[in-house]
């Protein structure tokens, strides 16, 4: 599919994205983003084997559980805070690598497509499926078949399954921190996880709002 599309699509999508029709999905944009993600991933020369990352993350979660004495909610919170710290720095790196080629996001669908096709491909080498809830305006990112690198070879004991420990909750924090770096306020929730016995693992991004530059009172 991707190879059949000629390279000239780059020039066409730049103009078409500005005049996007609201209701119909912009297929050329999706194909272009898929191409862009793979291109950026291959150009990126600094890549590392993921083994060390998964092992350090696992031992970190173990340390957190030991320290908080099985209080799972604090654990989830702490992981999300860590993610925010990482995401607010990661967004700068993302723009330095991608921004000259990327089209502007006009609506929430474009935002979800760029997140799943470019950002996840670049940093985690996996592409979650993107679903959009039109009524409540929620962006859903669904991970199929253990694509998620963090929880690839992980099994949780039954204690933490009942208490709902979201093992890879750091991803939700990273997305929230990264969106706050480009003046978008959002609530990111780790909705369900296959490690806990749910049929699929999903991340929900809701209440996306633009933060406006406001002049303080009295000036």
């Amino acid at each position: 599919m991707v190879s059949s599309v000629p390279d000239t699509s780059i020039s066409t999508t730049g103009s078409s994205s500005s005049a996007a029709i609201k209701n119909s999905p912009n297929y050329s944009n999706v194909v272009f983003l898929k191409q862009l993600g793979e291109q950026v991933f291959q150009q990126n020369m600094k890549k590392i084997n993921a083994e060390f990352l998964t092992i350090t993350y696992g031992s970190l979660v173990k340390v957190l559980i030991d320290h908080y004495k099985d209080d799972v909610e604090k654990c989830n919170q702490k992981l999300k805070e860590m993610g925010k710290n990482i995401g607010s720095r990661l967004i700068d790196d993302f723009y330095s690598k991608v921004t000259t080629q990327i089209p502007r996001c006009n609506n929430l669908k474009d935002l979800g497509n760029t997140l799943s096709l470019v950002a996840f491909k670049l940093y985690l080498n996996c592409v979650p499926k993107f679903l959009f809830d039109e009524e409540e305006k929620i962006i859903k990112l669904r991970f199929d078949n253990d694509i998620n690198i963090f929880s690839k070879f992980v099994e949780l004991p039954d204690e933490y399954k009942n208490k709902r420990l979201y093992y890879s909750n750091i991803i939700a924090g990273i997305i929230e921190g990264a969106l706050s770096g480009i003046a978008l306020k959002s609530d990111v929730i780790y909705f369900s996880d296959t490690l806990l016995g749910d049929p699929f693992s999903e991340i929900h991004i809701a209440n996306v709002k633009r933060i406006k530059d406001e002049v303080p009172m009295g000036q």
Partner: protein
Amino acid sequence: MELNNEVSNKTLLNSPIPKNEDASNVVPIEQQPLTVDYIFENLIFHETIISVVSLYSEETIQYNPTNQLLKYYKLNENIQENIIKTLQQMGTSIGKKLSLDFNNNSTMTHLQIIKHICKEVYHKIFGRQIDSLKTNHQGIFYLLDKQLLANSSIDFDKSLENYNPSESQKQIKCLELYPNFVAAVLGGYLDRSVTFTMENRVITYIIKY
């Protein structure tokens, strides 16, 4: 008996075909090694150390710098020891898990094992080889790393109000957390204790046989 033989023959004939399909399905998965971006991996590495520090300094301190690592040097000595202990425990367990792939042959000399660490194990952690390797040919190896702490962000806090030039030497103490962690990883990989020294932000790991 004959029927059974026929049935078994049929199953044998049928069985290789799905096996081949399975094999063809497995191969592309193996061809893609799990790779992650270098900067993303490095950010998580720094964030783990900072979060371990913040676990022990939640209630005790009002000092809140932009770089959370600086909290470390204002803590009590007992808490500092606890932080280093947890980091070392994490490091040794990580090193042991990394070493599961490594077949320690008896034919390998000490020098070959150390070269394997410099080239491949260090590449797994930081995406580059170690800077230089020195020996005295009597069983002591010095591994030098000049890049890890060269651009550390501790100096950026000099613009803060809390900054005193007299404390800058104490603040360098915070940087000891990184080599403590990495030395524990290498020690867990080799099953022996690895020590280190730090001078002018150049780390030397010392391995004795």
